[in-house]
């Protein structure tokens, strides 16, 4: 099962720039300007949204290289989390 999963992951990784083919945003995840067009104003909460500054905003904002790098970072960080959790687990048992 492990090998098969890694194969699927590798194929999807290679194909990941296909995700860049569309400029369409997800429903509701629009630029603030859209609200002005649709309802005439930007709701206060959305205008003044407080968030953290992401390291790689929007997966590199359309660059194929950054998209690959984003995929690599995502996969790497996730594996690292599970690896650490498994290690911590082992230490306990």
């Amino acid at each position: 099962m492990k090998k098969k999963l890694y194969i699927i992951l590798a194929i999807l990784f290679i194909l990941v720039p296909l995700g860049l083919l569309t400029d369409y945003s997800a429903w509701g995840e629009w630029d603030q300007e859209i609200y002005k067009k649709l309802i005439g104003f930007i709701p206060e909460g959305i205008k003044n949204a407080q968030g953290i500054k992401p390291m790689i905003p929007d997966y590199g904002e359309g660059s194929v290289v950054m998209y690959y790098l984003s995929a690599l970072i995502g996969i790497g960080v996730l594996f690292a989390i599970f690896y650490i959790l498994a290690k911590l687990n082992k230490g306990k048992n």
Partner: protein
Amino acid sequence: MHIPDGYLSPATVAVTYTIAIPLWVYGFKRLKNTLNEETMPLIGALSALSFIIMMFNIPIPGGTSGHAVGAALIAILFGPWIGFISVSLVLLIQALIFGDGGISALATNSLGMAFVGSFVGYYIFKLLEDKKFAPFIAGWSGIVVSSLFIAIVLGIQPFWSEAGKPLYFPFDLATTIPALVGSHMIFFGVVEGILTQIVYSYLKDKK
């Protein structure tokens, strides 16, 4: 379905975190009991799969896009709690590193995409286990009910208004439910179903 920061009223943020935190704590315990040298690479790879699947933005008529999630797939292979925590971790990384989904909305996004997607997918699969297309139906149902959850949380936001102007997400349930649930029933749910079916069958194939 990744709700950004600023879309939800503080009351919504407070309520969803109050519900999500104990579920995360319990789910984490379940995950820790499941993780060992054998399951770690599998659960890690499935989470990575969920992360990368969400990078495949699929355009649909009407000018929006969406993606599959993979929660049901993890849930039917390792149980709904593992699916819930794995996809929550994916959402956390997306929010922190890539600004995809807000931190204030992390509880809502996790309850919708991770919790609802995993549990609905898992129990539908259990119900249909011997049916050939159980994985497809589990994946489809999981993401459709996820989208309903997100649509409801977004659609109640106009309740918080000042002088008739919504302070947060401005569209009500009459708009959010058809837009989100409709698009997931017709498009993204089908993609999620196909993905769940193909990957599950391939992994379970003895060859």
